[in-house]
Each structure stands twice: as C-alpha cells, then as structure tokens.
C-alpha cells in the first residue's frame, strides 16, 4: 500500500508540473511527451514545494489534510487558467519524442549489439543503484545531517518551525536553514502521502529525479542531433561514476544539475528558434525553469543565476539594433518570471536573517589566496575515476571543435560554463571555502551540477566534428 501511495504522490507532482508546462506553453506546444514527463516531475516538485511554502507561511499545517488542500488548490487554479487561456486541457499535438535535427542513422548489426550492450549495462546500473537507494539506511553525511533531517523535522512538527527562537538549533528545520525548500517539502509530501516516514519512500524521489535528468538529457540531445547521438550522450552521462552515485543517493545535486541543464537547454532553444511562437514558448519555459531552480539549492541564486543574467543579456544585445529592442523585451519578461520566486524568497531570507551562500554563509569572507586549491582541483578533475576522461576530453573537443562553436549559439552555453567554473574556482581559491576543494568535498559536488551540460556540449561538438559540412542536417 505504501508503494502505491508513494507512486501516487510522485505522479501527482508530475501531473501538476506537466499541467503548469501546458499553461506556460499556451496554444503553441513545443514539448514532446518525454519532455512533458521529465520537465513535469522537476517543475512539479519545485512548484508544489513553493506553494506549500507559501501556504505554510499563512498557517496551513504540513499535515496530509493541509497538503491535500494545497494540491487541490494547485489543480483548480491550473485547470481554470489552462481552460481560460487555451480552451482545452489537451495540448494540440504532442509527439512521443522531440524531433531530430539530423537524419536518423541506420544501425548496422554490430552497432545494434553495441548500443544494446551499453544501454543494458546502464539500465542494470540504474536498477541496481535504485535497489540500494530504496533499501539502504542513511549513510552519507548530508543525507542524515541535512536533507532528510530537515525534512523529517518539518514532517514531524507539521510546520516550518519558524515559531522557534532564531537561536534554536531546530529553527526553520535546523542544520542549514538558509537552504530553499524544494527537496525538503517534496519529501514531506511523499511521507505524508505514504502514511509515514520511511527511508525508501522519501529517498525514492531522488531516483525519479535522476531518471528525469536522463530523459531531459536524451530529449535535448535528440533535438540537437539524432537518436543515435542522444543514446551515446545519455550513455556517456550515465557512465560518469560520481553522477551515478549522486543519482542513486539522497543528495540534492542531481536535482540541481537537472534544473541547470533544462534551464540552459531551453535558453539554447530560445536562441536557436526561428519561429517567433516557438521562441516565445521556449523563453517562458526558460524563465519558469530558472525560477524553479532558485528553490532547489542556494548555489542557484549565488553561482548559477548571475552568469545566466550575464549571458542572456549578452545574447540580447548581439543581434543588431532592430532585434535588440525585441530581445530586450524578452529579457524583461524572463526577469519578471524569475522574480516571482527570487524576490519573495530573498525577501523572506532577509526578513528572517538567513544567510546567503552554500551551507556556509559568504557574507563574512575575506578574499585571501589559498594554497593548494589549483593542485587539488587539477587532481580531482583529471586524475580520479569519478568523471572518467570527461574533462581532458572536453578540453580537446573545445579546441578541435572551435570553428563549430565560435559562431553557434552553443558558444554562450560554453561561455556560461566557463564563467561558472571560473567563479567556483575563484571562490575556492580566494576564500576559506578552499578546504572544500583541498579535502575534495564540496568541489566534487559542485561539479556534479555541471556534468550534464559539459557532456551535452561535448557530444554536440563530437557530432559536428565527425559530421562533414554537407551533412544531413534537417535545420
């Protein structure tokens, strides 16, 4: 019974996310069914958590009854808005998979065997990892010290615990009270829906988020290439051992990675779209996903949003005077959507004296060069098994594929990655957070956020390098 109730709770998040995507797209639909499901689960988790947060602030208890009221409200509002805007709930045409940009390749017998073996191996790893995820007791530090601990505190007290004195160790759930609430409140919903706190129940959503990441990634690569390259890329992503470990353990970094990927991918689609209607829809998805991302981890606001504003603004002023005005309008629309989450959340943090930064607040840091950071980071990226050969391969591809990306919108994704990476490097190299790089703790987890984007860029460059100019591109 608990399994059925958990699946129902997960499905509800997915449906609400998908309905919200339906509303965001309006009469013009661009997403495939696979993207609806994958983005729907990600967005649903953040959306529901955000509404629960708002409801809890006005006194709705985090009990099953209270949460069902919240869901009911979300459903009614979404359906009314969709009917008002689109006249029908069902979107016009939703293909199972997104369209390919390149001709599909016919697989030889050997290649079919290779694809089958690699896909089989990846699936086995995911299934076996899922088994471990659902049955293991808490083991890794942040699970019991933060993610599950704070969720359990909210679950047990059925409130956000803001009535406690600020110096109480359990104030706002305790441990890292500055963290946004998407992960915690998703877990509270699952546990309440399942009828009790259970590791299997509250951890199951991490496996679902990992699958959502893989599905988003596959769909994204298929849009940019074809099925074979999408399969190769998804295999490459799944094969990264550190990402797999994170995917199959109750940490929030895979969810952060999934959001970051969808945000940047929708940004890329906005840049690539020639049709104004498509572009508008991708812009709205880009905005909604960026807003939702801010409710997952503090890094989103501190590390990922500022460079995103920068590259987005840069992309708006790149297209000459006539288009500048139009793109400037896009920028303000995007900023308006993002501020729906960013402004209230920041206001809430300031009002309650919560810190900015990761687990450690950044306000009191002085900038002093720290020794050993570069060496530790180089060792971590190039000489450990967690990323296989991804980083040297990425450098090689950026070098060899320079003429493919220097005039392609992909360059802004690469620029974004470069700024984020440089930003993280300087944070570690110049602040006491260096210890997290030298001891190989926070730095590795920070890289997990970027892995899908890095693999995505690598696969696209590889595809273009190995495909001559007279290719069978459909765009």
């Amino acid at each position, binding site marked *: 019974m608990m399994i059925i109730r958990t699946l129902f709770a997960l499905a509800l998040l997915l449906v609400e996310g998908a309905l919200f995507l339906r509303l965001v797209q309006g009469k013009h639909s661009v997403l495939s069914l696979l993207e609806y499901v994958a983005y729907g689960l990600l967005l649903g988790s953040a959306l529901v958590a955000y509404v629960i947060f708002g409801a809890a602030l006005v006194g709705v208890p985090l009990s099953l009854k209270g949460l069902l009221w919240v869901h009911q409200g979300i459903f009614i509002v979404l359906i009314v808005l969709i009917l008002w805007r689109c006249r029908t709930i069902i979107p016009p045409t939703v293909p199972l998979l997104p369209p390919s940009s390149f001709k599909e390749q016919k697989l030889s017998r050997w290649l079919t065997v290779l694809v089958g073996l690699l896909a089989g191996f990846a699936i086995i790893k995911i299934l076996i990892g899922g088994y471990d995820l659902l049955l293991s007791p808490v083991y890794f530090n942040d699970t019991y010290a933060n993610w599950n601990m704070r969720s359990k505190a909210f679950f047990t007290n059925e409130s956000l615990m803001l009535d406690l004195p600020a110096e109480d160790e359990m104030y706002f759930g305790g441990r890292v009270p500055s963290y946004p609430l998407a992960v915690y409140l998703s877990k509270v919903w699952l546990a309440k829906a399942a009828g009790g706190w259970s590791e299997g129940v509250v951890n199951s959503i991490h496996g679902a988020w990992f699958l959502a990441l893989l599905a988003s990634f596959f769909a994204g690569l298929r849009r940019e290439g074809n099925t074979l390259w999408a399969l190769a890329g998804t295999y490459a992503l799944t094969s990264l*051992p550190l990402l797999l470990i994170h995917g199959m353990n109750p940490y929030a970094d895979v969810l952060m990675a999934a959001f970051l990927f969808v945000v940047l991918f929708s940004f890329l689609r906005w840049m690539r779209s020639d049709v104004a209607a498509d572009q508008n829809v991708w812009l709205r998805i880009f905005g909604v996903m960026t807003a939702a991302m801010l409710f997952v981890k503090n890094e989103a606001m501190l590390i990922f949003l500022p460079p995103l504003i920068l590259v987005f603004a840069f992309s708006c002023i790149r297209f000459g005077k006539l288009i500048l005005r139009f793109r400037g309008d896009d920028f303000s629309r995007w900023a308006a959507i993002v501020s729906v989450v960013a402004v209230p959340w920041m206001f809430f943090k300031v009002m309650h004296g919560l810190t900015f930064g990761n687990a450690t607040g950044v306000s009191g840091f002085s900038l002093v060069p720290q020794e050993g950071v570069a060496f530790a980071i180089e060792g971590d990226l190039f000489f450990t098994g967690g990323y296989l*050969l991804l980083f040297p391969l990425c450098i090689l591809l950026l070098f060899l594929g320079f003429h493919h990306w220097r005039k392609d919108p992909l360059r802004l994704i690469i620029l974004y990655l470069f700024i984020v990476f440089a930003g993280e490097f300087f944070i570690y190299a110049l602040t006491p957070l260096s210890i997290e790089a030298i001891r190989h*703790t926070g730095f590795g987890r920070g890289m997990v956020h970027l892995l899908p984007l890095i693999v995505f860029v690598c696969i696209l460059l590889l595809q273009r390098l190995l495909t*001559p100019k007279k290719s069978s591109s459909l765009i």
Partner: protein
Amino acid sequence: MRIRSYSFWRMTVQLSCACCLGLALLLIPSHSFAAERVYELWEFMKDEDIDAWHYVGLDEGELMSEGLRFNVKDRAVIFRPLPEGFHQHVDALRFRWDATGLDEVAVLFLTLDDDGQIAKRFRLSFPVSKGPTNEYIPIDFYRKDIEGSDVLAVTFVGNANNVVFDSVRFLHYTLFEKIRGVWESFADLQPLTPYSINILLGPTITSDIGSYRDYRDWRQLSLSLNAYLLVGIALFSIALLFVGLARTRRGAQWEDVRGMILRTLFAGIFAVWILYDVRMGAEFIANVFHDRSTYFAAEPAESSFRDIGKFPAFVAFAKPFLKEEEAYEFFVPDRWPYFGMMRYETYPALPNPGDPVSDLWVVFSRTDMSIDEENRLLLAGKPITAPGILVARFDAKSFIFRGAYAP
C-alpha cells in the same frame, strides 16, 4: 556522410572488442607465474651473516634459529650496502622481524656522497605489532624516492629485550607478473566510504604484485589510470598525425585525412571510455552486491553495513525505547558519523551533546562502559550514575541504561 559517420561507430565497436580481448588475454597468464622469485636473500644463519652488517647502538647479539636476537635501548641501527643490481632487478622487499615492545621500526634507503657521508635518506616507518612480523615494501611506489641509494638501514626505536631480526628478501618479478600486477591494481574495486559521495579515486596502476591487496592504503601512492590513458591518447594522436601526413604526401586530400584522424582518434577514446566504464560500473555493482550480502539479505544477527557495521541494526534496536523521550545521553566510539545519524534516526528524541540532562543512557560499541554489581553505569571504571536498571542489551558493548546522573 552516412558512410563516414557509420565508420566512426564501426571503429568504436572494433576497438572496444579489441580492448576487451586484450584484457581477457592479460588475465590468462595471471595465475601461472605467481611464485615469488628471490633475487637475493639476507639471513642470519652463520657468523659471516653477522659480519656482513654494520651496527650502531647495538653491542651484543645472539644468533638463533629464528634470526639475530638482541636488546634495544633507545635506538639501534643496522645497515648494509644494497646488493649489486638492486635498482635494476629488485621490485619489492620483504622483511621479517619480531620487534615486540619497541615503539617503531623504520627502513631507510641512504645515498652516500663521495666522502661516504649520508647525502640523502628516504625513510619508511612501520608500527610495531606483537610477535614475528612480515613487512613488505613495493619498490614500484618509491622508485623515484630511492633512486641512486647505496645503503639499506633498519632502525629499531624504543626499549625492548629479545628483539629478533630474521631476514630481508629482495624480490624480483617477471614481466608477466608485472602485467598481472597492473591488471590486479586496475581491477581492484574500492568499497564505498563516507567520502565516495565527494570523490571516487578510481583505479590506480602499479606493477607490484606482492601484497598489493593488503596495502590498500598505499593505492594513492601509485599513478591514476587516467595518467596512463592520457599519455596513451596523446601518443595515439601523434601517431595518427604522422599517418595522416604520410597519406597527404601520397596525394590524399587533407579533408579526407582529417576525417580519418578524427574518426580513429575518437573511436579509440570512446573504446577506452567504455572499458573504463566497465571497470567503474563493476565497482558500483560490486558495492551494491556487497551491501546485499552483508546487510539486506543477511541474518539480523550477522548484518553489517559498510564501515558503520552493526550501527543500523543497533538503531533499529534502540528506536522503540526512545519514542517517548525528548533527549537522551548517547555514547559512541566516535562522534562522527554516529551522533548525526542517531540524531536523525531518533528525531524528535535528540541525543544530548552537552552535560547530562537525561536519565536514559544509550551506549553503542563502548568497551570502556559497563554496568557494575550495584547497577551503576561505569565509564572508564568509574560510576557516573546512581543505581539504575538495564533497559535492554544489544551486545556486550552496546546497551540502554536508565539511571540518574551522579558524577
């Protein structure tokens, strides 16, 4: 275009198969050459054996069947020039001694200058265990550190009688044994630790075959597989470039040659990637199977989880007794990770991190805590509570006790 793209994939398939076949071939001789080959043996059997060494801080010694027996006061050093061909032919050293009662034994490789003075020293120290001990030094890990050294010295530190120094074996491994060492280090799967969520070391490569598996901590001294792969890929790229240049000289179009180089290079990298994935995937799967056999599918009494052992079983045992509590005193061997885990598991009952406030004492795996005849809780032999009651016992070192704090 399709033909070119297809040939990249075909090449990947072929290279992947070749890599797997190569690895399979490496496996074949692995057990046929396992015998230990002694390049030179230094023992203490005859008087000449004693004369072969030099001694500092050691005046007397007795030749016994088990080796040279002597007493150590503060420090004793014995040393001897390394054998001819040591740097070329010796791959490992195995020492045998009985240093019971000493603080430390260290092995030094000394490099002498022209005047016979010590110009450089490299020191490896070993903690002392009780009784005769074998210590193994894989030279492969230290080849650079001991380059050019002339003398081997052994230092005994501390105060003890009847210390025995038995022998030094200089071991030589054949090429096949070294290949086996490389394979075994590559295939040595690492267990999950609390740090695996931050960093996965991955395979490190050494040609040493001796007691590699017994010296897991030394893994970090050997080079990462990535270093070898990156050098290999660089050499492969250069070779491809030469082949490409040779073809253009024979009249081939650069565009075609460039395509050939890129397809071959990335097919090779993809094949290596698959191989690496198989290795890391095997580690992931092996760890889950280990969890299954030792925890999920194990009998409750036998179950043990990773490096926290019986703690999850203890938590399940203790939880029912803590349901009604607001706070309790919690004693564990180490504060991390147990305190945080317990805090999460028993919430809203919280383990108290400060001075005792509760009369419920939860003790896990503490050899220094017990209950005396008067039913008082003892810490390091001293009572810390008034007489109380044993609420439940998990094992000899773990239990739950109720009694008022009485320091």
